[in-house]
């Protein structure tokens, strides 16, 4: 099954360093697997663009360095997929939108520069809901991504291409972005690990802005150690992002503990409502019992404003999105509507033709919420409720819990088309993930079981900038769950 048998990054590094495996061989096999995934029927649709010949040259350089025993970076020769809303200079950055089709950024995101400096090979850009707005990857302007575990189901979103690429075994590491759960929910649906770091832990320079106070780039992989390794490479202050935190970056993968003895795990009752999918609830309860048996203390807690998180999130996110997306005017980026007869017509017609339905919906709602007479009732109220949600978390952690455990999503992966015409149902897919973005705390999704063959993700959350505790707890949970992550019993 995905994740349980495929080599992790440490095994690949050892194979490359011992020269049992060559970078060129690993890269060609990833590129072939990507091509094969789209040649199948139906196509997986995980990638929007794939690297070419220049990457083979980089691989050859790395092979020469490894042959000579030279010092190489921590991710030397490891293929990495990057979500297509993160700027790369050698591949297009479409954001899954027709308005940016074929757009190539004039600069690289800080995370991409750091990956390259670490020796990683950026093999391609992954599919997403247009401008990261969605929970299924069906909103991409270039067709949906399918879930490799059941092609009739969605991979989640908006980082669905990255999660699907991992679950299908095309790459060992991927980057996504998470504004309201866009790394964690697809990780849950595809049975992989996905982390949203604390807001400010990773530079957003070069991440195409959706909702600037919520957006954060996050790593995805098939196990916690690989996620920790990728975070260690991309995290840290960046002079090009004033919201990046000026704090030291530990070697997260070296700080992973062994077991959960003494760990205090808070379980908020609001995240286990009566209408939660019974299979999801059972898998999460079983995971908690395993942690408890291994010495963790599991304590029920309350996060009382949870029920208002989805409206608060969408009021804030849509307002920020409508402002951020104003820059796509037909002049500065990508497509321009032909034949427009005035400046305003260029703007209107380009945006009308270039944006998809969900993006238009959010621009209308966001603009409405920021307009005179509504600002305080919508954006202002959303921001006040946001601070109450953040206070709920502060109180829970002050009360002595080390981490908080919840389901990542209320259901397993749903069917393609099932929610696409019901925006409220789609928004409720994010009910357990948006709170971490609103409160700026780090959160990670880990596979904890299966329902009818489909993965269930459990989510852990920790204090701001305490990714060490978060990833240690995640590592302990991963070991506690063990092979049960791939079984129906959880």
């Amino acid at each position, binding site marked *: 099954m995905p994740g349980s048998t495929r080599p992790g990054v440490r095994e690949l590094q050892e194979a490359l360093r011992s020269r049992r495996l060559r970078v060129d061989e690993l890269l060609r096999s990833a590129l072939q697997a990507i091509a094969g995934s789209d040649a199948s029927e139906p196509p997986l649709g995980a990638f929007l663009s794939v690297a070419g010949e220049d990457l083979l040259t980089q691989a050859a350089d790395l092979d020469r360095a490894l042959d000579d025993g030279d010092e190489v970076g921590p991710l030397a020769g490891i293929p990495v997929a990057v979500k297509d809303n993160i700027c790369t200079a050698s591949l297009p950055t479409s954001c899954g939108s027709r308005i940016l089709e074929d757009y190539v950024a004039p600069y690289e995101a800080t995370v991409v520069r750091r990956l390259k400096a670490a020796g990683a090979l950026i093999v391609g850009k992954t599919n997403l809901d247009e401008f990261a707005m969605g929970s299924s990857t069906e909103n991409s302007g270039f067709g949906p991504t399918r879930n490799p575990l059941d092609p009739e189901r969605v991979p989640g979103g908006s980082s669905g291409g990255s999660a699907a690429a991992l679950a299908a075994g095309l790459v060992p590491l991927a980057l996504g972005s998470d504004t309201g759960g866009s790394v964690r929910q697809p990780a849950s649906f595809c049975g992989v690990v996905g982390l949203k770091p604390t807001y400010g832990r990773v530079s957003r320079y070069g991440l195409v802005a959706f909702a600037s106070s919520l957006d954060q780039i996050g790593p995805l992989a098939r196990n916690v150690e690989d996620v920790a390794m990728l975070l260690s490479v991309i995290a840290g*202050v960046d002079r090009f992002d004033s919201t990046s935190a000026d704090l030291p970056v530990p070697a997260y993968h070296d700080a992973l503990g062994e077991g959960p003895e003494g760990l205090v795990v808070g379980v908020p009752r609001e995240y286990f409502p009566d209408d939660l999918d019974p299979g999801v609830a059972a898998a999460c309860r079983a995971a908690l019992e395993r942690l408890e048996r291994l010495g963790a203390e599991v304590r029920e807690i309350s996060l009382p404003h949870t029920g208002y998180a989805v409206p608060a999130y969408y009021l804030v996110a849509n307002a920020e999105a409508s402002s951020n997306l104003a820059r796509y005017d037909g002049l500065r980026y990508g497509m321009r509507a032909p034949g427009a007869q005035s400046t305003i017509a260029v703007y209107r017609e380009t945006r009308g033709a270039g944006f998809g339905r969900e993006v238009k919906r959010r621009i209308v709602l966001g603009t409405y919420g920021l307009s005179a007479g509504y600002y305080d009732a*919508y954006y202002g109220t959303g921001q*006040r409720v946001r601070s109450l949600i953040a206070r709920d978390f502060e109180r829970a952690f002050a009360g002595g819990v080390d981490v908080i455990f919840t389901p990542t999503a209320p259901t397993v992966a749903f069917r393609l088309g099932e929610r696409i015409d019901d925006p409220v149902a789609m928004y409720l897919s994010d009910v357990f993930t948006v709170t971490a973005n609103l409160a700026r705390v780090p959160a990670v999704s880990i596979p904890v079981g299966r329902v009818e063959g489909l993965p269930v993700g459990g989510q852990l959350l920790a204090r701001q900038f305490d990714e060490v505790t978060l990833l240690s707890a995640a590592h302990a949970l991963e070991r506690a769950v063990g092979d049960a992550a791939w079984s129906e019993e959880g």
Partner: protein
Amino acid sequence: MTIKRTDVEKVAALARLELDQAELDALTDDCGSILEFFEAIRDVDVEGATPAGALEHPAPARDDQAEHDRLERPPAEMAPEWREGYFVLPRLPALDAESVDDDSEA
């Protein structure tokens, strides 16, 4: 919190978004049901709650010195036309006198 078709039309104009009649109808329905769902937030007692505050660990301010652009390729390669240090755009009809009214209305 309800939204009428005329509200959607007005907001779309403010957001510079061209919508056809079918899109206007669909967006009015969608936005109506979404705003109805958002109604729940009115139950929250926000008395005394302040909007989310400033970051605790912002990046340090840079020295106030000019730096080279961090571009991966020269600007001349980024636009269809580049002349004397400027990007050249098609002349927009709005610059012509007859289009001025259109711009000032919106």
